[in-house]
């Protein structure tokens, strides 16, 4: 019953040189540099944040800011000797003892050196303002709005500082620790009267919703009936903007928006002048729910975020907790993880291509895609019992081993997919109608992709050679032989390019699966770590060993306690970089689980790329961004 040895962190995670150069540059401004589990975090005061971010982008090569989030150290700050962090006269911010309540975390990525860097800014509750970075990294727009919505931190200089996930008239900031979970007590015979008496009656009507986007430039008001007016842009193109432009609402109930997405459109006839997405119609509060569950029980909540690729959610979360606990999954578990994830990648791309084609008009592609998807779902059901929400991975490995007949079934699936992908290519690749609707539609450049924090196929369609499986590998991906399809001809992407990359990625996934199957046959062994602190012992051992019984008991009642600190682990999901930032406060429940959802960032492409195209193109553009609303809203 040996305890697993601590893992070596790959050195490319560790940023040493830029840290030294940053120290020289901002020697008096950097408050703290810390390293935990191979990641570097630099604490800066908020006044120097824009300068540091500018330097990171221009001089140090960190071309993307991938995530902005916050941690609420309410309990620790409340119990600290200086609870609100109020400065005494003459006292400098750097002198007061941390912790203050809010910790803002920014994450930067450099593609050339494959390294990440975290910036941390501490804020007091009474003065929760920080300069916005949207002028330097435009892609933090949605992230800053989300932090405002969830924590109440104001970003000075943000172009549209409004709530993004919660309804406009919500009171409170949900992810703060003093905001209730909103748990509804189950009503039984003995307590129903008390619960009914507690429920609020005669709630006031909600105030009317506010505008969902700002209009740049000169505007004028036009009446739209019912005594209301609307703001429309004035431009030289329209002599009479009141009669030549329209404000149209698309969604949240719409057959082509891939879920509950609302897009506010400004159009001149069919031509789109502006498109702004309004999200939050599927906001589920998963991140807050996970703070109330032990680490293992929270795995089931991760499935339902990006519901087309649930195994990637499971994997990202489990890998993050494994890094936090310094636990390694055995080799057979990694092979199974790779196999299941690549099958999931194929099933997710099938839905993406199928719905993309259906929205543009090729409905038969949808039926073909779902027919093949059934084969993949059969494999998931065979292994885990569930077609979609498998929750198959655990901290330290997989829940159970694959059953007999798994390899044969997967081989059949691979053979089937090879034939069917040829069919799809024959249907769409050189189809003149498909090419006319998708080539040259939705053109965006590499600068756009980097600036807007796009990841995944959207980034590779502009020629950036970045795939986490190759550049920051996990689960032994570096030992598999596969290519990453990128756009080698130009640095601009369009709908056709995205479609082409997805088909090629499916073919590469089949290659990986074939190699994985060969390895699976040659790698017997456990599918979960033997570290009894995180993984339960096998059931038959419970009858023989007292320690196993105690470990089982501890795991089921209390779970395991994690060391203090935060860790960020990302996986390459079919949509892009799916990252889990897990902050631990030393207890058995996570202090904060932040899900860096790829669709949330990828949606920022839509307002940038839609103007100039028609409404019928917009449908294809929404499909191009391949968003899953469960991933966007969480």
């Amino acid at each position, binding site marked *: 019953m040996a305890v697993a040895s601590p893992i070596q962190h790959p050195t490319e995670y560790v940023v040493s040189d830029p840290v030294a150069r940053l120290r020289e540059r901002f020697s008096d401004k950097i408050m703290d540099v810390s390293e935990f589990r191979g990641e570097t975090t630099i604490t800066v005061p908020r006044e120097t944040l824009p300068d540091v971010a500018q330097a990171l982008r221009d001089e140090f090569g960190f071309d993307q800011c991938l995530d902005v989030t916050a941690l609420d150290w309410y309990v620790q700050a409340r119990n600290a000797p200086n609870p609100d962090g109020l400065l005494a006269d003459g006292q400098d911010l750097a002198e007061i003892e941390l912790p203050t309540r809010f910790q803002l975390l920014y994450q930067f990525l450099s593609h050339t050196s494959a390294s990440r860097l975290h910036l941390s800014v501490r804020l007091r509750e009474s003065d929760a303002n920080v300069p916005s970075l949207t002028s330097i990294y435009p892609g933090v727009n949605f992230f800053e709005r989300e932090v405002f919505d969830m924590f109440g931190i104001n970003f000075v200089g943000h172009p549209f500082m409004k709530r993004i996930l*919660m*309804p406009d008239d919500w009171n409170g900031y*949900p992810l703060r620790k003093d*905001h*209730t*979970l*909103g*748990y*509804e007590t189950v*009503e*039984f*015979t003995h307590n*129903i009267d008390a619960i*009914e008496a507690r429920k609020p009656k005669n709630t006031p009507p909600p105030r009317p919703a506010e505008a969902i986007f700002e209009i740049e430039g000169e505007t004028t008001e036009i009446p739209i009936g019912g005594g209301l007016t609307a703001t429309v842009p004035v431009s030289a193109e329209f002599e009479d903007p009141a009669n030549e432009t329209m404000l149209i609402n698309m969604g*949240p*109930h*719409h*057959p082509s928006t891939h*879920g*509950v997405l609302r897009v506010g459109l400004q159009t001149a006839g069919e031509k789109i002048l502006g498109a702004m997405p309004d999200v*939050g*119609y*599927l*906001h*589920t*509060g*998963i991140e*807050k*729910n996970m703070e109330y569950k032990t680490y293992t029980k929270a795995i*089931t*909540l991760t499935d*339902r975020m990006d*519901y*087309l690729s649930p195994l990637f959610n499971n994997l990202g979360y489990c890998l993050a907790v494994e890094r936090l606990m310094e636990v390694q999954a055995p080799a057979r578990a990694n092979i199974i993880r790779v196999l299941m994830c690549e099958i999931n990648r194929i099933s997710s791309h099938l*839905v993406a291509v199928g719905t993309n084609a259906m929205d543009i008009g090729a409905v038969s592609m*949808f*039926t073909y895609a*779902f*027919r093949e*998807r*059934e084969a993949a*779902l059969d494999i998931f059901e065979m292994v885990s019992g569930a*077609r*979609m*929400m498998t929750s198959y991975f655990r901290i330290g490995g997989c829940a159970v081993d694959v059953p007999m007949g798994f390899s044969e079934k997967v081989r059949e699936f691979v053979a089937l997919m090879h034939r069917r992908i040829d069919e799809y290519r024959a249907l769409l690749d050189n189809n003149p109608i498909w090419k006319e609707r998708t080539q040259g539609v939705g053109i965006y450049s590499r600068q756009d992709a980097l600036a807007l924090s796009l990841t995944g196929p959207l980034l590779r369609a502009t020629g950036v050679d970045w795939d986490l499986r190759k550049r920051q590998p996990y689960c032994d991906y570096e030992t598999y032989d596969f290519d990453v399809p990128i756009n080698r001809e130009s640095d601009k992407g369009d709908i056709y390019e995205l479609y082409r990359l997805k088909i090629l990625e499916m073919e590469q996934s089949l290659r990986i699966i074939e190699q994985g199957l060969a390895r699976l046959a040659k790698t017997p062994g456990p599918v979960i770590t033997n570290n009894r602190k995180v993984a339960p012992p096998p059931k038959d051992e419970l009858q023989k060993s007292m320690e196993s019984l105690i470990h089982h008991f501890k795991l089921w009642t209390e779970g395991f306690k994690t060391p203090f600190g935060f860790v960020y682990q990302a996986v390459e999901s079919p949509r892009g970089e799916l990252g889990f930032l897990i902050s631990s406060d030393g207890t058995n429940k996570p202090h904060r689980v932040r899900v860096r959802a790829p669709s949330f960032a990828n949606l920022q492409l839509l307002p940038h790329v839609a103007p100039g195209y028609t409404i019928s193109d917009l449908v294809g553009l929404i499909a191009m961004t391949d968003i899953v*609303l*469960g991933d966007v*809203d969480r």
Partner: protein
Amino acid sequence: MAEQVIPANQIRGPEDKSGALGAVFLKLEDAVRWARTKSMWPLLFGLACCAIEMMATFASHFDLARFGMEVYRASPRQADLMIVAGRVSRKMAPVVRQLYDQMPEPKWVIAMGDCASTGGVYNNYAILQGVDEIIPVDVYVSGCPPRPEALMYGILQLHEKIQKGEPRGQFKIENWGIRG
């Protein structure tokens, strides 16, 4: 060949049918209900993960079209069955209610999945604990997500319910008989 009317209980197959069966007696209500169940038009209303399984039910492998439900309408004005597939968040609730109000009578609601039935895995500030908080539900299909066969069974149960003429759906009743 002389026209011979064969009594209904002696017909062996299509070769016996001469088209002169005579009169068929049934109640108007039964005929109307039969028509309603056999050509129900679902509202294309998927919210979250259950929507993917609903799409799989409409797709070729499970094929809901064989029950007359091939035509799914995005416009509530032309639909009579609302399958609430997925979790209903507080921001989405007024939209669901408005869509339900826009559907013309007769209309039915299936709550597909655990989240639409009772709130599912999520008991928090953001999710309605069951869509029956805002609209009356006829059939609850449990599962997370329910298999396509489960959804089809729920739809067939709804058809039976309509055919028998049972009373229409109900809201979340606070005192579900537990008060006695």
